[in-house]
């Protein structure tokens, strides 16, 4: 834990300037020509030296995307996005021949990650955590690959997996989130650049925490990450992603797709600490985070657990979902969504019960401050076949001040009489008395709010891997700075 503590201290010292990851790395990049067309798609595919089928798949997605419309149902507002006014591919030049080892990685990139608190030199890293570092459109380094290979675990950028294990990618890509699933998933399918690919063989418990660290650096550039994780029968892995971006006045788009395939008796625990640049106090700049994440529990007794701590982004649109296809499969969604200033978040989950005796649990904690708007949107559906399916949903909102808003939009569809669904929702404010009591013990107002909010989120925090829980708690404090007084 000592490294975590040091990192945390570091965070605390920097708490004064609100977003400490707002710097830009000065590095030469190669970009695709501005705008989005078939040529852009071909450019990206060629850059990654992809097999023909992959290019065709992308082009097909692009055609579909052209026919689709941007969704308007989320409770968020933002100016129309000009999809031709952005770059869809940007990569550090130094990464041209992807470095084979850490010694070959551009020191400027290593320094960037060090500044972000993610040292990539293996000796300095958190023991037991393997990292894939994605910088704009490419992965710059993946650590502990050899160690993981000893257990047959594949952990590499998806672009690399397309070279080394094309059949694996071909077999699963788009089977959980189809190309035309939604507007942003289609866009992602056409222009996705990098992200991680994980494969855990039958019966293997992944010996390390796996994590991917996403960084947007270039201006006017979108990031379209694609992550694919496959847990074979009886396999287990815990995966964590973190995200940051420089502080800029204009908005940038991040549209990711994450697909999890979970076979019989397997389990994936997927955690996200999302700290994209949220924009300034007046609501200028920040990332648009439009993400499609879905897990498919294909076998019996499969289990997936999504945990998310969403503190960043100007606008978040995200519903990590579970398809509970196998009998007795289990889906969990633990979420903390914090919005401050002018941030908007419309987030939640979908639990699709298809198998018998499937169960799901949703714990959502929304904290709104400033002039922000936070919406929990969740669907629980049970198919005719889903006898004895169970769901428990608990949705708590905490308001700080009286200029923010919290909304809960649950959808329930049940087609089998034996299904049991429980839904609880609360909305509260931090009481003046609680604050007075806490401050009377010598804790200043901002720290008191952070302490009380962390208490409010505890159930979700406890789901995070130990290594990241402390950091997430500090992040809560930082995100709420300036929300009181």
């Amino acid at each position: 834990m000592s490294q975590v503590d040091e990192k945390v201290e570091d965070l605390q010292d920097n708490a004064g300037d609100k977003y400490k990851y707002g710097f830009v790395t000065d590095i030469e990049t190669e970009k695709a020509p501005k705008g989005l067309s078939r040529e852009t798609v071909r450019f990206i595919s060629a850059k990654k030296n992809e097999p023909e089928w992959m290019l065709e798949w992308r082009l097909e997605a692009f055609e579909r995307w052209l026919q689709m419309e941007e969704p308007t149902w989320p409770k968020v507002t933002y100016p129309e996005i000009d999809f031709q006014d952005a770059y869809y591919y940007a990569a550090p030049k130094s990464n041209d021949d992807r470095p084979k080892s850490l010694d070959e990685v551009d020191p400027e990139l290593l320094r960037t990650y060090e500044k972000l608190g993610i040292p990539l030199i293996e000796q300095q890293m958190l023991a037991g955590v393997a990292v894939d570092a994605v910088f704009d459109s490419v992965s710059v380094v993946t650590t502990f690959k050899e160690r993981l290979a000893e257990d047959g675990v594949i952990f590499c950028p998806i672009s690399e997996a397309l070279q080394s294990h094309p059949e694996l990618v071909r077999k699963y890509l788009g089977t959980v989130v189809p190309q035309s699933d939604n507007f942003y998933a289609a866009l992602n399918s056409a222009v996705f650049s990098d992200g991680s690919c994980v494969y855990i063989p039958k019966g293997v418990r992944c010996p390390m925490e796996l994590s991917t660290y996403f960084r947007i650096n270039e201006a006017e550039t979108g990031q379209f990450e694609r992550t694919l994780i496959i847990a074979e029968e009886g396999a287990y892995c815990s995966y964590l992603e973190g995200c940051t971006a420089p502080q800029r006045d204009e908005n940038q788009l991040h549209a990711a797709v994450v697909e999890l395939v979970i076979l019989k008796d397997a389990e994936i625990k997927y955690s996200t600490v999302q700290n994209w640049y949220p924009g300034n106090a007046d609501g200028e700049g920040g990332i648009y985070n439009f993400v499609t994440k879905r897990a498919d529990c294909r076998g019996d007794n499969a289990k997936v657990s999504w945990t998310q701590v969403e503190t960043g982004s100007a606008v978040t649109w995200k519903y990590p979902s579970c398809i509970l296809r196998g009998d007795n499969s289990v889906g969990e969604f633990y979420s903390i969504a914090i919005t401050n200033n002018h941030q908007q978040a419309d987030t939640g989950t979908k639990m699709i019960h298809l198998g018998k005796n499937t169960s799901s649990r949703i714990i959502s904690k929304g904290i709104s401050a400033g002039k922000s708007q936070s919406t929990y949107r969740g669907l629980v559906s049970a198919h005719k076949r889903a006898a004895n399916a169970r769901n428990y949903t608990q949705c708590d909102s905490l308001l700080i001040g009286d200029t923010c808003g919290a909304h809960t939009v649950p959808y329930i569809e049940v087609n089998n009489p034996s299904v049991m669904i429980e839904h609880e929702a609360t909305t509260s404010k931090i009481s003046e008395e609680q604050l007075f009591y806490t401050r009377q013990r010598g804790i200043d107002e901002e720290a008191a709010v952070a302490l009380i909010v962390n208490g409010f989120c505890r159930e979700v925090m406890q789901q995070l891997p130990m290594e990241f829980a402390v950091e997430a708690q500090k992040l809560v404090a930082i995100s709420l700075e300036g929300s009181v007084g």
Partner: protein
Amino acid sequence: MLEVRNLHASVGGTEILKGLNLTMKPGEVHAIMGPNGAGKSTLAYVLAGRDGYDVTEGSISFCGQDLCKLNVDERAAAGVFLAFQYPLEIPGVPTMTFLRTAVNAQRKARGEKEMDAPSFLRLIREKSKMFKVEDKMLKRPLNVGFSGGEKKRMEVLQMAALEPKLAILDETDSGLDIDSLRIVAEGVNALRSPDHSALVITHYQRLLDYIVPDVVHVLADGRIVKSGDKTLALELEEHGYEAIATDAA
């Protein structure tokens, strides 16, 4: 140490304290007694600096500082501690975490080094033994589901951990069983020293058998109407506030 002069304070536009005077010397223990609604808790809140408790006239000097210039947490760091008549629940925050945050926040505010985990643990172990608080309770969210008596003992445990210069105990004895009462009193007595004073608000003479006060005050209608030594408490017990009030008038 504490010098309250002609204190007028109002809550929601209603004047509750109406020219209150109180002087405490270092290391002294003062008891405040008085009828319901007299303004005892209000005085405690005003000393602690709660929002909405506005001082409209008069002054409060604490260890040479103008207390009114400090906000709630600054007063706490300066050494003012209030054991609440009705302690608040803080859901999801383990008692241990709350205590550690408080101790270190005060140390930081005073420019002292923060306490490391082992030293803090030792400190809390020692104090919780003293107040017969079980480890299990320290892991639970602060005050959530605690019984009335447990909450009061937790208040005094917090006091012991923070070692304030001035501890204000607002009816900490109410709702305590005989054993708890003794434990709480021992805690207050243990802290008693030339650097640590206490202002004990109570309705019962019984507590003062254990915590023997240097001075006893009667607070009625927003003013101290009578002060005396510990025998005043016995007198009150016998004759009630009515007699005193008419006496003073």
